[in-house]
């Protein structure tokens, strides 16, 4: 295996000096990229020409392999934080580099460098090439631009400066304090980032994009009669600052304060199996975790997913259609193309109860003899792409929300979930419910909180017996999904939905 010499690497990195033209950034108190054009950035600012890409790709395929790709990234992220009623902390993060991958069947060789010089890229490509051991594979002579729609257009060429962002955070915190006398602490944060990427493949594709992402969030702690509770709420997505109007600040303040105050009267529900009704929106993250991961094609290609033998089979009732959608305008999980250069799409996973598709990257697509579904995603240039979800949700069904709640004699209603995990092979999942209600005789009853619910993913799908017509995405703007040590932005949603039975992990037995 070729190794990058560490001392040489450090020297080159720290002493490159003016060898590369500094990328243009705007500074108006807020560090970000100038311009909103999607194409031409890396060539203009870093001298990454097609001929240089071809040279690096040729090195990556110098020992053979099916294909190779280059993933250039330059990301600038900023955040402002408020504690004690004033914005007293700021942060900026800059990430720059290129990942180089060689693929041979289902084998991957991968190297990356933070220095966009020919010498460093060739060294990383040589590392990636070690996965193969044959004769060289040819690289396409020309790179054709990948054309796609833009699912997150920016509203202006010049981003807003720092001052209105400071006002937004202070305004949100002020609205929080004005809404309840029980508040003893408010923390508010606004963060946004812009990521420029360019994917160049050995088979002739070149895809360039500018991906925005931003979110306004708040957390409050409330106290009443010696009892304390906390709650968190946010709004955001692939948006620019124009999205964050006074109405959004109000929505965040009302969401976080009302959530916290209601918890002051909440109880931990009894333990055991019971029917569960999911509210629309945020509980969609449970769907992502419990069901979505099992549909990622790498787990099925490796036969570790319980769904690997179920393609074409009935996995749910006919009113259930599950999609993974990279095209929802402004949603956090939307992408114009994936990190392999494949255009985004709305992929139907389960159609009227029948399993129709997995989520594919290029490797799994080739394995199954299909086209990629545009789900090859990665956290950054320091990671190789794997199948990942985008915005995952269930399509609206025939029922009304109220009739679903009225159909349950004794169960729980889940309004907010915070985090979860799935065991892909067994299909088991667990999800943490931060807020909900008991359902008694068809009516919403006592408030509940801080309870884990568990079940089997395939059984959950089979046990969905009612789906309402009120689909919502979460629009939290902050959720990311972790897999194999990589985090990628996603969103999820669902309509109101009834699951016949799940295990609720309370602290008492039912009836005790």
């Amino acid at each position, binding site marked *: *295996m070729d190794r*990058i010499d*560490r001392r040489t690497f*450090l*020297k080159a990195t*720290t002493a490159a000096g*003016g*060898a590369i033209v*500094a990328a243009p950034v705007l500074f108006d108190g807020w560090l970000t990229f100038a311009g909103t054009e999607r194409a031409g950035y890396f060539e203009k600012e870093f001298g990454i020409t097609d001929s240089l890409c071809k040279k690096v790709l040729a090195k990556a395929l110098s020992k053979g392999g099916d294909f190779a790709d280059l993933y250039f990234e330059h990301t600038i992220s900023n955040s402002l934080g408020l504690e004690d009623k004033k*914005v*007293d*902390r*700021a*942060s*900026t*993060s*800059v990430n720059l580099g290129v990942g180089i991958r060689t693929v041979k069947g289902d*084998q*991957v*060789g991968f*190297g*990356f*460098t*933070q220095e966009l010089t020919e010498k460093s890229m060739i060294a990383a490509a040589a*590392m990636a090439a*070690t*996965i193969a051991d044959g004769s060289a594979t040819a690289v396409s002579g020309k790179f054709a631009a990948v054309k796609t729609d833009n699912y997150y257009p920016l509203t202006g060429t010049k981003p807003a400066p720092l001052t209105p962002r*400071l006002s937004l955070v202070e305004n949100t915190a002020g609205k929080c304090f004005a809404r309840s006398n029980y508040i*003893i*602490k408010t923390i508010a944060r606004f963060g946004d980032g812009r990521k420029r990427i360019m994917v160049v493949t050995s088979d002739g594709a070149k895809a360039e994009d500018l991906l925005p992402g931003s979110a306004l969030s708040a957390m409050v702690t409330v106290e009443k009669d010696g009892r*304390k*509770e*906390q709650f968190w709420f946010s709004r955001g997505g692939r948006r620019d600052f124009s999205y964050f109007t006074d109405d959004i600040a109000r929505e965040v303040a009302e969401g976080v304060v009302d959530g916290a105050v209601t918890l002051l009267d909440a109880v931990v529900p009894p*333990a*055991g*199996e019971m029917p569960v009704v999911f509210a629309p929106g945020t509980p969609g993250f449970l769907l992502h*975790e419990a069901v979505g991961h099992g549909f990622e094609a790498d787990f099925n290609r*490796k*036969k*570790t997913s319980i769904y690997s*033998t179920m393609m074409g089979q009935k996995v749910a009732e006919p009113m259930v259609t599950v999609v993974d959608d990279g095209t929802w305008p402004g949603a956090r999980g939307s992408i114009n193309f994936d990190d392999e250069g494949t255009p985004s799409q709305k992929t139907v996973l389960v159609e009227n109860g029948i399993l129709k598709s997995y989520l594919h990257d290029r490797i799994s697509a080739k394995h199954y003899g299909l086209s990629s579904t545009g789900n090859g995603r990665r956290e950054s240039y320091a990671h190789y792409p794997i199948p990942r979800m985008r915005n995952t949700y269930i399509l609206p069904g025939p029922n009304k929300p109220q009739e679903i709640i009225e159909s349950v004699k004794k169960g729980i209603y889940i309004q907010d979930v*915070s*985090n979860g*995990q799935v*065991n*892909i092979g*067994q299909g*088991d*999942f*667990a999800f943490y419910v931060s807020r909900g209600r008991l359902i008694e005789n068809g009516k919403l009853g006592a408030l509940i909180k*801080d*309870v*884990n619910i*568990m*079940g089997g993913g395939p059984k959950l799908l089979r046990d969905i017996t009612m789906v309402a017509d009120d689909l919502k995405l979460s629009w939290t703007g902050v959720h990311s999904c972790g897999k194999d040590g990589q985090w990628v932005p996603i969103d999820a949603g669902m309509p109101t939905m009834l699951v016949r039975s799940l*295990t*609720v*992990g*309370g602290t008492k*037995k039912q009836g005790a």
Partner: protein
Amino acid sequence: MNKQMYDLCKWVLDTVSKAGAKDSRVGLSKSRLVEIQYRDKKPEIIKQATTLQMGIDLFVAGRYSSQNTCDLRKDALKEFISDAVSTTKLIAEDPYRTLPDPKYYKGRADIDLKIADASIDELSAEQEHTIVKAVEGAAWSAGGEKVVTVEAWFNDELSESVTLTSNGFSGDTRSTNFSAGASVSVRDDDDRRPIAYDYVDCHFHKKLGNPEVIGANAARKAMAKLGAKKIATATLPVIIENRNTHRIIGGFFDALDGRNIYRKQSFLADKMGQKIGSDKFVLVDDPFIPEGQGSWLYDGDGFAAKKRTIVEAGVLKDFYIEWYYSRKLGCEPTSGSTGNMVIPPGSRSVDEIIKDLGKGILVTDFLGGNSNPTTGDFSVGIFGQFFDGGKIVHPVSEMNIADNHLKFWHKLSECANDPWLYSDWRTPSMVFSDVVVSGV
């Protein structure tokens, strides 16, 4: 100390000062990693790269910001710093934001923590592949025809860091880490495919031990999950296996954090000196353990490391208070960083304890769950083994335990004699009595 890294940090300190910042802290980390992963007896992933990351804390006219970049070209850095200083001037003043009093930098231990293996560069690619193949081969052999697939890996990493502050702190670290492991997927009679893993993490290549043991253990753990089912909701004794106790303790730990205490999000804020657990609950933070995964000589503020008792015989003795929140709370700082978290082992093995308890659940894995630092309520999914009559009866899955930390730690009745040494959580298996386990 890596002179090139030191020189760059020093240059940044000077540049920051010239740009108008009164004080600053500069940290530069460098990591070279190798990852080799096998599946189905061939390499699946080969990855190698070096990363550099710089963090700069700016203290400008009573204001604060933190900056991170990997674009270390001096021209780019100079512009980055200039912009960052300008941004910092625009946010609100915070009188509590300063570099620490340098007196806390003093007293740093002059010892070798034995966390860097000088032979890391002598390990050849062939040797690395041989380790992975041995892990994978043993897993296939031990799992037999029930095995669906095996993923085996070997990683090594060389990490270096340099930290300088404008008020005199200077520190550097160099460490190596080696990891070998396997995850094994097996097919159950109902086509469910439970996965289990085993691994070793250590600072020295030779401490990896026999790679075949790792592979065989992973297969044995996966086979032990076959036939899992849930039992009726019950109140039972629960044994949490050594390597997983941190999932429960982590929720307790959040409430020890000075930031959460200041934000009124800690159920332990008013419990100092009080009994918050049984006499068996002892927790010591020891950053000086040779070869420890959590060993260090100075923390993120530059404070000299100290061995501290956090909980003694169930009584809360200390918090984690970093410099900034100590000033906001008006108390003496301790440290915001954890070292090796040690819960002293007991005298009996898990097998002996199971025989003695008769009936209960041995928790071998957690799934999902969370803990509320404000209230102490937690709820978490579990996998494990149901035992009855002092013997393992069958594996359990899709079950849950829930409690409140202020009650749960009073239920700690015994620690086993099996401390887990491959993590900064050096904890033995722990026995809790009368836990509600949710199932059917």
